[in-house]
């Protein structure tokens, strides 16, 4: 049986089920216990699992992340919730220099089953320090897995998988997605890392998108369909590991690609996916890969400017049309 539930409830189910199954799973974060978290993901868990396994922390992101990494090294299964991905910058040393490197530095003997859950993206005028999409920062660090679900079922299945594997995971949610609904099967749901999902099949152009860009890509695809253009929307779901095979298979079919990311254009994950496609599918491309991305500027407070600084549905449509040579290339957003 499949129900429609919210993204945040799907996340809670994943945590709840894994906490029930494994006494080593615990969660720490700011306001996650008593208050149930700013996005209500952890609501009710304190009552169910008690203050030993569901803990509020002071405002100390570097410490929380570091302590989480240490706990993971010592064999527990921490979930550290960081309120905004922006604040993860405070704990970068622990992520980059400890969590990601420990396995290599110990010659493979040490493992770090650590999860940092956090959320990013623009949303309603929270301005430059609360609106970033920073997946590229983690993507570049060998040893970190980067998970970025766009739909409730993915969120649940991937978080459950994360809680069973052995490497540090950066689990990136999106502030706009928490209250979106989607079908989630009842019962056990575990989704392996590295498996892209075709959110809509098509043959004319491949649109690669993740997180909150997936609903926008789907909306664009629906509009394109009205013009007779069948866009395939591919959601990698995990950026590390990346399902290169699925991407290349789609490109082999469509010969045209649009990559959509909310993160700023310069040095984003889209660029890297583009580089892989041009490296491995150069001769099957009928047009340059189009990247639709955030502008190279911090996100402004003003709502109109905020909107202008990240990809909107018409931007995706225009890019898709360009790959089909139906629209001249304008200066790309960069």
């Amino acid at each position, binding site marked *: 049986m499949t129900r429609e539930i919210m993204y945040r409830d799907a996340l809670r189910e994943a945590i709840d089920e894994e906490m029930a199954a494994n006494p080593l799973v615990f969660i720490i974060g*700011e*306001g996650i216990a*008593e*208050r149930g978290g700013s996005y209500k993901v952890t609501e009710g868990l304190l009552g169910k699992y008690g203050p030993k396994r569901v803990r*509020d*922390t*002071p*405002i*100390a*992101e*570097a*410490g929380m992340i570091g302590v989480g990494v240490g706990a993971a090294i010592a064999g527990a299964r921490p979930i550290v919730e960081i309120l905004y991905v*922006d*604040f993860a910058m*405070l704990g970068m040393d622990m992520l980059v220099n400890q969590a990601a490197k420990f396995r290599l530095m110990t010659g493979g003997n040490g493992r770090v089953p650590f999860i940092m859950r956090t959320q990013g993206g623009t949303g*309603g*005028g*929270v*301005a*430059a*320090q*609360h609106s970033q999409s920073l997946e590229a920062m983690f993507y570049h660090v060998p040893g970190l897995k980067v998970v970025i679900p766009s739909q409730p079922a993915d969120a649940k299945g991937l978080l459950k998988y994360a809680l069973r594997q052995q490497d540090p995971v950066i689990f990136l949610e999106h502030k706009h997605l928490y209250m979106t609904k989607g079908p989630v099967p009842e019962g056990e749901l575990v989704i392996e890392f590295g498996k892209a999902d075709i959110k809509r099949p098509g043959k004319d152009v491949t649109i690669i998108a993740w997180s909150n860009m997936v609903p926008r890509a789907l909306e664009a695809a629906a509009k394109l369909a009205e013009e007779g253009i069948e866009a395939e929307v591919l959601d990698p779901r995990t950026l590390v590991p990346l399902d290169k095979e699925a991407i290349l298979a789609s490109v082999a079919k469509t010969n045209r690609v649009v990559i959509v990311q909310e993160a700023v254009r310069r040095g984003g994950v889209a660029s890297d996916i583009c580089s892989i496609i041009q490296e491995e599918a150069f001769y099957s491309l009928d047009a340059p890969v189009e990247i639709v991305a955030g*502008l*190279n*500027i911090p996100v*402004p*407070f*003003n*709502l*109109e*400017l905020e909107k*202008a600084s990240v990809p909107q549905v018409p931007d995706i449509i225009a890019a898709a049309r360009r790959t089909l040579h139906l629209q001249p290339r304008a200066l790309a957003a960069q």
Partner: protein
Amino acid sequence: MPASAKRANAPSAELLEKLFRTAYKIRVFETEGIKLYRQGLIRGYFHPYLGQEGIATGVCAALSEGDIIASTHRGHGHCIAWGADVKKMVAELLQKESGYCRGYGGSMHIADISKGNLGANGIVGAGTPLGVGAALANQIKGNDAVTVTFSSDGGSNNGTFLESLNLAAIWNLSYVLVIENNHYAVSTRIEDSTREPDLYKRGLAIGVESHQVDGNDPLAVYHLMRDAVQKCREGKGPILIEAKTFRHMGHHVNDPGKYMPEKELAHYKERDPVDRARNALTEMTGIDKSQIDAIEEAIRKEFDDAVEFSKASREITLAEFQQFIDSY
């Protein structure tokens, strides 16, 4: 030594009026600002300073032109106490081009560098290193300016508190760190965040002169701060001041703050810093009620004018935004 023991002379009428004006202006700004928020005119975060007015008021009254302040996510009060133009503040909240940050910043980022306000900050605790840096800049420049960071109980758990206050100490910077201990970080009690809720002790541990004061008493804050400023100008900085206080409502406009015990809230409301500023003014100067009314009226009008001004202002255009991007 308690602040009171140091009072060299009784406060002047001028000072008392200034303290009241400032505290009241903050009160009006926040109370009316919340209304604008509820009308949908303000978006994003809005963290009211209601209940904490005594601190910004007392601290800034002890500063002079050329001094520098750095603030928190709960920054409106510091901004006003530091003499900001209410018009430009409201315009910023309404995301208008005439705002302090031309609508790019919003409540959490209002700044006025030209006047030495380094701004509010969305990262809890970040104002401490930034303020220490400004104090360092002044030492490099060789002037006697004082820099103040307003921080929070939460901010003192950010590791840069230790790192940067320690730098201020070894370099004897002309710097005052004011910790507004309002007992909460959102819904988390200070007692749940540390075994030692007297935060000034963290300064003592690294050799920094550190004090505690009733943050709801603007005059006490002023006197302690005046001494701190003087010491800083004599090269005896940095100094840490922990000011105990309490919010009058939830963490931000949309937080009902149910976790705040009613009795405790009542206790602090009885010690309302705006009332205390008003009482001090009337009791110590004998100023009459009509004069107080006139002051209040003028301040309310200033705010209303600011709203009108802001509503009439335009927003940044996309073309201007593009220009900014090209130069970034």
